[in-house]
């Protein structure tokens, strides 16, 4: 089973909502669409689901052209960010409704609904209506409806975004198990890089209506194709600074220089350096680390991690480190960065090394 997009575009008025996109999404793992709000994740999902018409290009399911097929005929299911259920039906009827439409027998429906409800802990609520449920239960009901159906593609459009933290973690852990063995292509849209990393599989980075990079999630995280991809796939945001490479060394400022390592550009010139906040730490842990100085503006403590936003020259950087570190706001602190973890981008944004 595979879902293939060939040079698909979508135009609304004179705006290009989705720029030419080609993708092959396969079953057996999560296909994550990662991008900020407004990047076109939902637009792309609507195109793939047949809810919107593509301006040009082709959409294929298992090699069959479905570009002009209505969503009703595509054998797909969809879970929205908002909890969408049929308000006048009980939870049981909600889960059963797509099955009834597909002409499944009554006993088979009852069996399937109960199985799915059991996994999603909805058994005690089967006779209730959606508005009598909590937000998490409502979304579980929507998930159950999507999963119970024999779909060839399951679209999950930020399904966990409106849930509270605990529920989100719980459902995120369950999702891969729920969808495993279904034989469906799973498309999962999210704006959180962390979620993409946790779900694994493959990730398509989206920015401004375009898929900028697509491939195995870990590989994309380690090798962002360009500055934009690195920005999208980093939370907190990736630290960026202009650097000059000359005389076999990298120069961040006249005082901060370090010798060229294997990942640095070979030719002299001006480059954009990018480094993830977790490689900028307040304590020196290895000899190769480069010392920085910055004025701490904000510091945050989130459970086992401390992060500090600091200003260094004209750059605002973030440091993220395990353990509890105390910063004095407004004071200069030392930070250490690992030069082997730096990305170097050319002036046009492309990754050099």
């Amino acid at each position, binding site marked *: 089973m595979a879902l293939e997009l060939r040079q698909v575009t979508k135009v609304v008025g004179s705006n290009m909502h989705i720029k030419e996109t080609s993708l092959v999404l396969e079953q057996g793992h999560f296909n994550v669409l990662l991008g900020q709000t407004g990047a076109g994740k939902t637009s792309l999902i*609507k195109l793939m*689901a047949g*809810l919107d018409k593509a301006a040009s290009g082709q959409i294929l399911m298992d090699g069959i052209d479905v570009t002009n097929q*209505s*969503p*009703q005929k*595509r054998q*797909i*299911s*969809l879970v*929205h960010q*908002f909890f*969408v259920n*049929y*308000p*006048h039906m009980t939870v049981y009827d909600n889960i059963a*409704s*797509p099955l009834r*439409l*597909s002409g499944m027998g009554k006993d088979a429906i009852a069996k399937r609904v109960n199985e799915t409800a059991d996994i999603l802990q909805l058994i005690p609520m089967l006779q209730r209506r959606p508005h009598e449920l909590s937000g998490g239960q409502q979304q579980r009901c*929507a998930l159950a*409806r999507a999963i119970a*159906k024999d779909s060839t593609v399951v*679209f999950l459009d930020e399904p966990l975004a409106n849930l509270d933290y605990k529920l989100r973690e719980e459902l995120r852990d369950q999702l891969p198990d729920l969808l495993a063995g279904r034989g469906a292509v799973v498309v999962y849209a999210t704006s959180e890089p962390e979620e993409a990393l946790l779900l694994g599989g493959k990730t398509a980075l989206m920015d401004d209506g375009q898929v900028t990079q697509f491939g195995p999630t870990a590989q994309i995280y380690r090798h962002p194709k360009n500055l934009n991809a690195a920005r999208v796939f980093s939370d907190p945001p990736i630290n960026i600074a202009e650097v000059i490479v000359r005389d076999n060394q990298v120069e961040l400022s006249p005082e901060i220089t370090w010798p060229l390592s294997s990942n640095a550009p070979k030719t002299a010139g001006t480059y954009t350096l990018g480094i993830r906040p977790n490689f900028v730490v307040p304590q020196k842990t290895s000899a190769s680390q480069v010392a920085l100085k910055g004025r701490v503006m904000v510091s945050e403590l989130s459970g086992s991690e401390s992060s500090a936003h600091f200003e260094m020259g004209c750059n605002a950087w973030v440091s993220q480190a395990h353990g509890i570190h105390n910063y004095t706001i407004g004071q200069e602190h030392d930070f250490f960065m690992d030069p082997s973890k730096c990305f170097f981008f050319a002036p046009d944004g492309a990754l050099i090394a």
Partner: protein
Amino acid sequence: MQKRHIVPIVYILFLLLPIYWLVAMSFKTTNEILSGFSLFPQTFTLENYAVIFTDPSWYWGYINSILYVSINTVISIAVALPAAYAFSRYRFLGDKTLFFWLLTNRMAPAAVFALPFFQLYSAVGLFDTHWAVALAHCLFNIPLAVWILEGFMGGVPKELDETAFVDGYSFPRFFISIFIPTIKAGVGVAAFFCFMFSWVELLLAKTLTAVAAKPIAATMTKTASSAGYELGLLAAAGTLTIIPGAIVIYFVRNYIAKGFAMGRV
């Protein structure tokens, strides 16, 4: 009784006084009504109601009214549902302007349309039928129903439609088995307003009918002038005219509150 109860009680009594007077009169004889002031019926009689329920010229007035009001409500809602859906879900050229112009129909007094309707219906042979009144009232009721329903539909996320299509619902099936039940409060409110307007509207109903479809309100005015002052009978007819409205209000009272909360009623 506490002091703060006095004002509302006085106000309610003030509101109920004319209704009480009407009901009290309907149980009196005409002689008693004409003889002077009496708070309660001195000689309690059901004669007035008996006349209405046995005389065809009276009870047909009610049947006629209920018939054209029902036809009108059904047509208005049936036409307004898809129209309101289009206004709430699609963007098309001139949608906002058209939506506003719908309402302007209600700004003209009904009398303006009495003559054109009379001439038109006489020409096509619709004069003095229930359809004549029902269709004439649609001119006012469909825009109102579209306006009210659009408000309720706007409160239903578009994602519901999308989910249903993806789940395999065809459009007609989705509309009837998912969408309408979802906005049933709105349908109730819209139907109530169509019913009430059509039930109390007298001018068009009277102009467009003669004998066969004469509404109850027209029957009442005629009896008053021809057979002297049968005040008891008229009061009984008036009392019976209030009842259908009261029943409908009872059923939609919760929905009306919701409609007001959504700012569309």
